[in-house]
């Protein structure tokens, strides 16, 4: 977990930082040692990071999903922005969105993004958002996806067929759960 003490070298090399707080009572807040979080950026400025976070929230607006999950998307984009051509593309696209984008309301953000749908900028951000937003333990907890299961011995005895709101399937169309008998 990121601590609040920033050494001098970190203070100089970070180009930007995103900060926030976990939602009280959320799954991660119950696990984390502190609710405050910060994400250092090494290519993007704080303003650019905030705007990209707003883009991610517009592309995939999950009202009750932590800001922290979106900050992880920006962290990944920041990593890709180490490439000069990518950084230039991002800056050009953000310029088209305008300086007020990060604080605009959702309808305004959607209206600003829609004309850019076929641009490389938009496609890149959509791919980065989808890839990074849904691949974190935070997202798994939020959406109910259980992830890795080999260590638990699979779902065979852990609910793979526990649905009861539809009738059972006749054995002729499926098969028995083999128990060694």
């Amino acid at each position: 977990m990121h601590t609040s003490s920033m050494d001098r070298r970190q203070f100089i090399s970070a180009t930007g930082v995103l900060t926030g707080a976990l939602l009280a009572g959320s799954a991660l807040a119950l696990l984390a040692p502190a609710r405050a979080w910060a994400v250092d950026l090494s290519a993007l400025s704080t303003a650019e990071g905030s705007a990209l976070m707003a883009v991610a929230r517009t592309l995939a607006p999950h009202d009750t999903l932590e800001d922290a999950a979106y900050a992880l998307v920006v962290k990944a984009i920041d990593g890709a922005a180490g490439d000069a051509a990518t950084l230039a593309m991002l800056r050009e696209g953000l310029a088209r969105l305008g300086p007020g984008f990060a604080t605009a309301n959702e309808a305004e953000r959607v209206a600003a993004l829609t004309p850019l749908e076929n641009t490389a900028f938009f496609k890149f951000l959509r791919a980065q958002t989808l890839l990074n937003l849904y691949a974190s333990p935070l997202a798994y907890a939020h959406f109910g996806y259980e992830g890795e299961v080999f260590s638990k011995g699979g779902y065979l005895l852990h609910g793979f067929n526990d649905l009861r709101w539809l009738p059972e399937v006749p054995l002729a169309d499926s098969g028995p759960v083999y128990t060694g008998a």
Partner: protein
Amino acid sequence: MASISHDDSSAVVIIGSGAGGGTLAHELTRRGIKVVLLEAGARQSLATFSQVPGEAFGQLTWLEPRTASGSWTVKEDYPTLPSWTCKTVGGTTVHWTGATPRAQPWEVRSRTTYGQVDGASLIDWPLEYSELLHYYELAEKRMVVTRRNGNPGLPASNHFKVFHYGAKKLGYQRVHTGYMAINSRPADDRGMCIQQGFCVQGCKVAAKWSTLYTEIPRAEATGNLDLRVESRAVRIEHGKDGLVNGVVYRDAKGSEQRQLARIVCVAANSVETSRLLLLSESSKYPQGLANSSDQVGRHFSHHTGGFAFGVFDQPIRFWRGTTLAGLVEDETRHDPKRGFAGGYHLEMLALDLPSIALAGFPQNLWGRDLAYMMDRYSNMAGIFVNGEDLPRATNRITLNLAVKDQFGLPVANIHVDDHPNNAAMRAHGQRQAKALLEAAGATRVVLSRQTPATHNMCANRMSKDARDGVVNAHGQAHDIRNLFVSDGSAMSTPSSANPTLTIVALALRQAEYIAKQMGSRAI
């Protein structure tokens, strides 16, 4: 494991260790034939298979570059991954979903059955279905396919309950948990399916058949196999007599090596097999090997495919269980009244949380429409439409002279213009899939566009007439009698079936032929 000398020209060299190459390697080595098996990828194991998101993709996928062109939507939607196959020992049998339906009897006579279709290059297969059926039966026993030979079907998961309910409500008759090469009980010295849902990441209990832990270790045990991993074939060489006599490859360090060969069998999957034959051009074969007919790389087929994902008011948790053990067979018939030739399967399909948005949904889905679906991920069910796409002479693999790989060799370009029949079939299939999900209670359904080619077929097809294809009914090159194609690119037409069972069946048949030809010294 054997160590066969590079200068041993009595060896059979097989390029690619997947369904075709791996099976062929075992079949030849158990008959006492020395085989050098070249595999571009590394060797994974049950221990190294990963269920951490993204890791398996990087570990198993063929990520070396190829380009795409043509009007197919895949070029636009997946420019960096038009074809999704494996680069690993076991080939694409490591990440496949285990589906092993058979091609239908008329599908090996598609030209006769569908007639002349403008803009399509249909041909009949040069073998009878009765003969293919014999090898299907052998393959099904070998792979322990469920619902065949008394093997029980896989049990119904929550996802399958939804799939089955909707399908029966629509009036479908043949709905079941599929013909799957996934153990429904322990068999073949492999584990039983414990319903993990990480089929595509490599089965960590080996319940799903893969040459990695069946054919290849058994081939090694004969003492006649020399498996060379991280060895990428870059050229097939030939002598003045026109017969192939060796394979040049780059080893794990990138150094060039040459293995002499009595026979060469190419099983690198449709894209790379075509590419390798074209790269092997010479003054004697200026169009590439086995290509006097200019058919190498042509008629590339990828199956008409598309997803439907629906969300419901109640939980399904479709990730709990196999990825694809659910099948509707009713639409595989040829019924022109539906508005298209050929047929398709409806296949139950689940995707993990990171993959569903990126790979399952259309690329233009974003905002509230995307969030609506993802918020209901726990209440989601999915279907994959898998249908026969019509082959076209202009759908082809060629060399892209403008893009080179790390060795300075032109990469493959995949050019596809989907035949209008494909669009009509996809529309019908996705409409039926949507209706199925809604019949089971889905409140909203999202349809994808054409998915990347996970089934890559027909690019070096079998033909009776040497002008129509690349190889004969044994996968033997018309032009060069000691050169064989041993992967899905040998299929004459794609059928509506996931191709692995057909590839294994053809490999079993080809092995018998090669052994006999070697025995009589015909090759």
